[in-house]
């Protein structure tokens, strides 16, 4: 009688999976028990809002400086993800000649082509979706930051009510700074969209385009290339449009964030050694060998 085949399970991988699913289950249980709204408010909105207010109060009551420092800190915290995203993008780029070679070789057999592409990714230790994760993780931060800036620059009673409810009572200095000075350069109200409707949208859209352009690597997959191109145009246009609708304060955050992103990208491209795909494959294989 033939013994049933048992799947070859890597204990480390299993532990990692169990931990991940355990964490997800814990989050879901806490979320349903405590309430997602409460978690969002107490876990993200209030800490971020109060941190911004703290920076504002201690940095000369300047919104621009507060947002600059805050963005730097946020970028610092998320920099491992950013760097991973950039590195992933660079690896993908370095693999293009090999991918093109495979494309030519299996032009008539799509299934084989995909198999070979996947094999190549696997050998080089690259997850084609790896670059998306940092972007996805940043979404909640953007939303919370957007809400915080709106509340911080409150110029309507409903926004001020949210500020009054979300500020920590221990933060006694708040009584001295509310309402926050939302006007810069004499006339520009940071709580309102850019009065020129053109300067900030162009700066935000332009800087985002540049950042996207620097980050997007050429792809041999026509579908991927087309998507990259779409994103490269759509994102700056979208954010440029948002800037005409949003508080200028948020547009300033976008601008600062883009500039830091560009600098980070430039720094990595400039100072990181070129990527050798064969070396990556060897490293991945040796890692696999060790695991086995």
């Amino acid at each position, binding site marked *: 009688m033939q013994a049933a085949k048992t799947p070859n399970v890597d204990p480390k991988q299993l532990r990692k999976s169990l931990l991940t699913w355990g964490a997800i289950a814990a989050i879901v249980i806490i979320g349903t028990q405590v309430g997602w709204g409460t978690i969002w408010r107490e876990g993200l909105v209030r800490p971020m809002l109060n941190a911004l207010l703290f920076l504002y109060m201690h940095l000369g009551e300047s919104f621009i400086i507060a947002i600059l420092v805050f963005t730097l800190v946020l970028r610092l915290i998320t920099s491992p993800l950013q760097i991973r995203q950039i590195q992933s993008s660079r690896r993908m780029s370095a693999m293009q000649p090999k991918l093109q070679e495979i494309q030519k070789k299996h032009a008539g057999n799509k299934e084989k082509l995909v*198999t070979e592409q996947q094999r190549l990714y696997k050998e080089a230790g690259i997850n084609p979706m790896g670059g998306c994760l940092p972007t996805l993780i940043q979404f909640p931060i953007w939303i919370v930051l*957007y809400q915080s800036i709106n509340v911080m620059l409150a110029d309507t009673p*409903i926004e001020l009510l949210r500020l009054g409810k979300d500020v920590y009572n221990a933060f006694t200095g708040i009584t001295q700074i509310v309402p926050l000075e939302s006007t810069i350069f004499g006339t520009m109200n940071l709580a309102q969209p850019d009065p020129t409707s053109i300067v900030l949208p162009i700066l935000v859209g332009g800087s985002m385009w540049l950042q996207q352009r620097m980050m997007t690597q050429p792809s041999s997959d026509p579908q991927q290339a087309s998507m990259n191109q779409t994103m490269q145009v759509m994102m700056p246009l979208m954010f440029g449009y948002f800037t005409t609708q949003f508080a200028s304060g948020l547009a300033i955050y976008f601008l600062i964030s883009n500039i830091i992103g560009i600098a980070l990208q430039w720094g990595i491209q400039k100072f990181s050694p070129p990527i050798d795909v064969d070396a990556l494959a060897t490293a991945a294989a040796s890692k696999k060998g060790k695991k086995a």
Partner: protein
Amino acid sequence: MPRGGPSRPLGKEDNRLSKVTKRGRLALLTALVLVSIMATGCYGQASMQNPGWTALTASDGVVYAALSTGQVTALSSQEGGAEIWLYPASGGQKSPVGCGLPLSPKDDSGESPLDAVYGLPVLSDGRLVLASYDHHLYAFDRETGERTLTYPATESTLVDGPVIGGVTVDSDVAYFGSSDHKVYALDLTSSDLVWDAPFETDDWVWGTPVLDAARVYIGSMDHSVYALDRSSGALEWSRDMGASVLGGVALADGKVFVGTIDRHLYALDAETGEQLWQSEQYDGWLWGTPLAADGRVFFGSLDGAVHAVDASDGSAIWSQTVDGAVRAGVVAHDDTLIAATDTGKVYVIGMEAGDSEEALAADGQVLSSPAVDSDGTVYVGTAEGKVYALDLERRGDPTLWVYPPDKK
């Protein structure tokens, strides 16, 4: 060997992987679009469109409401909340797409809904007077709803900021403050400013002024309370409270009562501005105009409580916890108080002991003060544009009617 034969099972698997990858990209794009929609204002408070709330007043069985849709209406209580008039007649519907965009910005006569009205409207000599976030003060004929006054008449910088607080009218003069830091006195008949120049503070003025025979009292976000000469607008005294004064002040027995965001209630001498006492510190900002009655001062706080203190020394009498922030001032109804919260709850609280009873769970936040008519009917407006009429003597559900009526 047939082409692709041995690799077929693997090919299926890889196709699946490829599909997963494509789905992932699609999910990313979808997430981007969703985030964009949420961020541009179709979600919560994100919109730059100015969200208002419903502010109302009542007299002789008619409730006058500035709705959060930007429309102003008079409703007959005897006829179950039937519209006597509506200004403008249409145009208050919101776009089904959300984002706070009006579906039809103008009605047939070319009239547009107002921008948000936060201060309570007031009735004076056949007029309904109110002020808006759009930097204007308006008067309507209370019988017909015809707009009889717009000040400034044109788009000008005469009032250079949103008007958030209410208007106080006496002897045909309307007093109000604005986010342009100024306090105005406007003759409603001639549409001329009464004072040589508006009185200027150092920050937004969001409170409703209160008057006595000689002075106008008002608080500002520059941390001060001001007493101005009623006829000239000249400063009589000012008192630095050390924190922003968001709401109105109350005047009773020669004292001015004011709450601030440092979470204290203060009493000032109305003649000199000298501070007489300060209350204990509460857990939330004090915003709504305090109510002074029978030697006590009643007020709510944003941490979800209503308090009573002794008007002579500020000592605590009672505090009652409620569900939600009490933004607006409480109002008196016989020997009880009516307090409303941002969770839509309306409470009846005994003035004597602070015992409370939930009278209504409204469908939406209640952020402005309820109105009490002479027949005892209580009216409550929500941030979603609903008006509730309540008979608090009635057992069970006190709701008499709701405007607009439920379509079901």
